[in-house]
């Protein structure tokens, strides 16, 4: 009898073990590429002529001696995204899918983000090797002690909009006066505040600021006059919803759009961040050059093959529908291309503007993103310049001056 009980207990315990294992790694398709000993030299061929970053009053950033970096051969690296799989990160998924990372000697695992997983923090903890994050958020984390350095500014333009219906007559930030303005908060509101003060409005008295959900229902129901939206996501969601007055989808003609980039207060968004403390290690800095190079090659591929890249992302298990994904791909391409100074190269003017807004613009609580300007080692163009040079040598178009966005027809629900 007792033996029976003990056996039952043991069975329960082992069952629990099985269940945990079963609930865990269900991955049917892994996001890793099998690196078959990539032998192509990447960083080793560097020269000192590439170290000169675009000049600016922020100085030249962190100096990385790319000539001493060693090219990786099948190195396993992890990339932390800031959100779940979607076309916003298509370049990285394409670089896996098209074997660009493998060619560069890397075996890359892409780790999805979540609501409460700050990528720059995961990077600083050493759990991942590179991370994708918006510049103000990463700099705020840096101020809190995380030694992260921007090694490639993939998105050169801000994708934040303030969307409103035509009848509200909101065509610039100056028209926000007296209106109900939605914002996401949590550090996503600073472009709005910068635009308000640039237009000479007082955020506390001239506008009503409303906390906005991550859907656009507040705008559609009329509770918000102008809602915050990303070009590649929430704006499309409005255009995928049925207009009850017409029975058809909302059309771009129904809406006014204020772009913070056009208002001159755009803050830099998606960038590739590396661990500053490890950049002096030749192996890691070689990985960084190879990673940036292959990632940018992925983005160049997505520029020329928007549909293929949208399909890659859908195949990676994104829940967003196919036309929504293609729309997102196309809008993201517009934020990257054309890249006059070379793809991924940090434009110091945009960097300075971002830093200025982040340290000078107060939200309603009187808080700024940064309490002081970040130190010079918070960014470097040495790695991306080297990557761009290698890509040019490979015949990859790193400027995309002839880039033309495609036309995407949205469907109901983005399906």
């Amino acid at each position, binding site marked *: 009898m007792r033996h029976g009980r003990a056996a039952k207990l043991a069975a*329960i*315990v082992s*069952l*629990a073990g099985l*269940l*945990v294992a*079963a*609930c*865990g*790694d*269900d*991955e049917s398709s892994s996001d890793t590429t099998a690196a078959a000993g990539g032998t192509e030299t990447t960083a080793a061929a560097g020269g000192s002529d590439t170290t000169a970053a675009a000049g600016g009053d922020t100085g030249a950033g962190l100096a990385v001696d790319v000539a001493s970096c060693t090219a990786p051969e099948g190195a396993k690296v*992890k990339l932390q995204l800031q*959100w*779940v799989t979607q076309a916003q990160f298509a370049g990285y998924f394409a670089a896996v899918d098209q074997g660009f990372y493998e060619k560069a000697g890397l075996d890359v*695992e892409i*780790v*999805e*983000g*979540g*609501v*409460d*997983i700050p990528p720059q*923090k*995961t990077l600083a*903890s*050493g*759990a*991942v090797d590179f991370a994708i994050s918006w510049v103000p958020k990463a700099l705020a984390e840096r101020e809190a002690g995380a030694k992260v350095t921007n090694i490639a500014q993939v998105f050169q333009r801000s994708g934040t909009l303030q969307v409103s219906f035509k009848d509200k007559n909101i065509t610039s930030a100056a028209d926000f006066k007296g209106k109900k303005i939605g914002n996401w908060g949590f550090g996503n509101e600073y472009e709005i505040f910068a635009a308000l003060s640039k237009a000479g409005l007082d955020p506390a008295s001239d506008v009503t600021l409303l906390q906005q959900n*991550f*859907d*656009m*229902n507040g705008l*559609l*129901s009329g509770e918000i006059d102008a809602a915050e939206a990303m070009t590649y*996501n*929430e704006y499309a*969601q*409005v255009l*995928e*919803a*049925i207009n009850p007055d017409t029975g058809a989808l909302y059309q771009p003609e129904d809406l006014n759009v204020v772009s913070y980039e056009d208002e001159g207060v755009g803050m830099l968004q998606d960038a590739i961040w590396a661990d500053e403390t490890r950049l002096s290690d030749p192996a890691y800095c070689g990985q960084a050059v190879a990673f940036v190079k292959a990632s940018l090659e992925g983005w160049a591929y997505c520029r020329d093959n928007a549909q293929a890249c949208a399909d890659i992302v*859908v195949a990676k*298990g994104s*829940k*967003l*529908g*196919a*036309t929504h994904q293609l729309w997102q791909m196309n809008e993201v391409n517009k934020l990257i291309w054309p890249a006059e100074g070379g793809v991924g190269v940090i434009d110091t003017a945009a960097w300075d503007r971002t830093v200025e807004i982040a340290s000078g613009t107060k939200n309603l609580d009187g808080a700024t993103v940064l309490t002081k300007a970040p130190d010079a080692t918070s960014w470097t163009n040495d790695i991306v310049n080297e990557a761009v040079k290698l890509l040019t040598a490979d015949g990859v178009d790193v400027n995309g001056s002839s880039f033309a966005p495609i036309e995407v027809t949205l*469907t*109901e*629900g*983005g*399906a």
Partner: protein
Amino acid sequence: MTDAERQRRRTRIRRASMFAVAFVLVAVSWELYKAVGPEKGGTIFGTRILARTDDRAMPHIWDMFSRFSESEVRGGEDSVFVVVLRAAWYSFRCALAAFVAGSLLGIGLAVLMARFRFFERALMPYLVISQTVPIIVLAPLIFSLMAYNSRELASKTWLAAVLLGVFLAFFPVAMGTLRGLQTTPSAPLELMDSYAAGWWKTLWKLRFPNAVPFLAPALRLAGAAAVVGVTVSEISLGVRYGVGRLILSYGQEATSDPPKLYTAVFGAAALGLVMAAVVVGIDRLLMRNRPPEAV
């Protein structure tokens, strides 16, 4: 069929039909409010009290259920039903693992505290404090602790979700079991003493059986806590295959397709129901040889 069996069967049928009736009642009151409530919502003294009733805020029940048969993404083979079912099953396994591990941990702690009063005094305040920390803070905390310790663990967000489930589930079990172990009547304890039975023997033969009626309700709480812990951290950490993540994803689509979100919510509710059924089953198993008056 004996009278008792017939009686039991009748009770069971009545319970099942009451469940269905309750569900229909909820659905009817939803639709009723939607029909008579203010479309733009009602405000009293400038504060919104009454919910909006338009299709965006309160979709029709049939619209929610009709989403189940549609395919999740165009060109995709799987219907929403299959996707939700799969996600709920995944989360159920995580929650069950958390429930089992949490219960074992809770029983272990209870035995430790019953055996050594020293442990009870030292541990109890911390156990109580542990349950007052908001889950929404804990999920990222547990995850970042894991990520700091190992590169391998950094991509295992599901493990953080299970750990959070364990963290919530062990507490009621520990409290219930401890109570049961400590309230064993003194007469049988003295009898065991006179048999020269050791502490462990007394625990197994007397204290444990005495604790079972306290354990049963504790397990119900633990089951619910495990489900809450797992699904909430799935939302917070974006655990890839879970039903919490599905709520997050469908919530993002709520602009163009408000009813779809409810399919994932139903999935989470179904998961809770199945967990409750499992706990009732365990309850039956534990109480099977007990005379009714002892309960």
